[in-house]
């Protein structure tokens, strides 16, 4: 479990956070979804929650507390998934369709 207490875990978590932000930007542009500030705020909050959940599971495992990792993972994982689904619908992502290629 040394992986979770070392710097590599945090590095990967940071990379994932950056990739997620870039991915959401490209994905929303591709589908023509307007992203006003409040949508970015909700998205950022959700990314923080997801990152926190991952970090909590990882650090608990790193400290040799698998039970805490499972309990925390279940509690915060469920909250993350539920809020993720709710935001997905509230932000209108579920209705989004990719733009058609006009050059075809």
């Amino acid at each position, binding site marked *: 479990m040394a992986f979770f207490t070392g710097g590599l875990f945090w590095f990967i978590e940071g990379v994932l956070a950056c990739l997620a932000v870039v991915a959401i930007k490209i994905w929303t542009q591709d589908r023509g979804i307007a992203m006003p500030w409040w949508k970015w705020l909700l998205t950022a909050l959700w990314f923080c929650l997801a990152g926190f959940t991952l970090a909590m599971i990882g650090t608990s495992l790193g400290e040799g507390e698998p*039970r805490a990792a*499972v*309990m925390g*993972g*279940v*509690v915060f*994982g*469920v909250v993350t*998934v*539920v809020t993720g*689904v*709710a935001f997905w*619908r509230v932000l209108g992502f579920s209705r989004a369709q990719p733009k058609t290629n006009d050059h075809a």
Partner: protein
Amino acid sequence: MSLKLIIVLLIPLVLIAAWVAGARRMQTRLEPHLIQVVPGTVELKPLGDGSFAAQADERVVGYARVDQANGYGGPMRIAVGIDTTGTIAGVTIVDHKETEAYFRKVLSGNGPGSFVGRHVSDPIEPGVDVDAVTGATQSNLALVTGVRQGARTLGTNQLGFDVPAADPVRFRFGWAEIVLLMLFVTGFAGTYTQVPGKKPLRWISQIAALVLIGFVYAIPITLTHINSLLVGYLPDWRTQFYWYLLIIGVLLPVLLTGKRPYCGYVCPFGAVQDCLGAVGGRRKKIPEVIQRWLGWFHAVLVFAAIFVALYTRNPGLTSYEVQGSLFDLTGLLYQFVVLGVVLVLSLFIARPWCRFLCPINGVTRYIKTARSSWRNRAK
């Protein structure tokens, strides 16, 4: 005779066999427990009233007996020992019928050890002179009542102490019972009458049940209630009136009419799943074949859980529900994992727990099937 009817008839016969077999193997040796509660005991001499004199080298070093009190799942038997000055020397739990996660809570504090050193004339009350346990009140109360009863009987009969008289049992009817009754009335109105605005009524009832029956009182119906009823561990109606309201409110409507107002209006875990379903849209359909297999799995799981409970005479042993993990954060690790999976699935599928895992639904579905088979044959 159809396969369905054969299964319907076979289930009670197998359960009766489990009940009888369970009754036969219910013999616990008390001696080791009695010796344990009075340190230094070499032999026990029966005193006639269920008590024993604990002796060492022909000399009485204390007294011991086993008493019982009703816990959440059934009777809890407790061995109590006192020394010759009337001080409690030891307490052990001989056997119990509590749900494992709640029983662990009772033991998590000082448990039986918190009584040692108290005198038989002490109040022996949770929160007064012994530890109170939050989240396992009924199990802890059984332990305290058993110890108090045992210690006071020994103190009075063997040492001639003047101990406080036992409190008279009072009929308990509080807010929890009132709330449950009101929810059942709403459920019956919504199920059996054509009241306008059924949908909002159902939501209001479910939210109230979620908050009050779920989070505030944390006492929804569980398999332990059904198992206790089948094993024959019926609690005192004066102190456990809620238990009877719950059992009658859940089982009687399905027996008489084949409908289940509890599931739609009163069940707090059903409400949680419906709320999550509203968030996620729960539009996913499970293929018919998988539904059928899951249905069989559900039936076998519930049957096995009841069978084991009857055979072991332990109603709480097979109570695998996950509501406790949600409403008062009590449960075994697997229950938290299952809870997480169920909550996530509830976003996409309508009531996955109720349809494929809930033991209460399994029992009521059996009653419905048996009822309809009976009616069809009668026609």
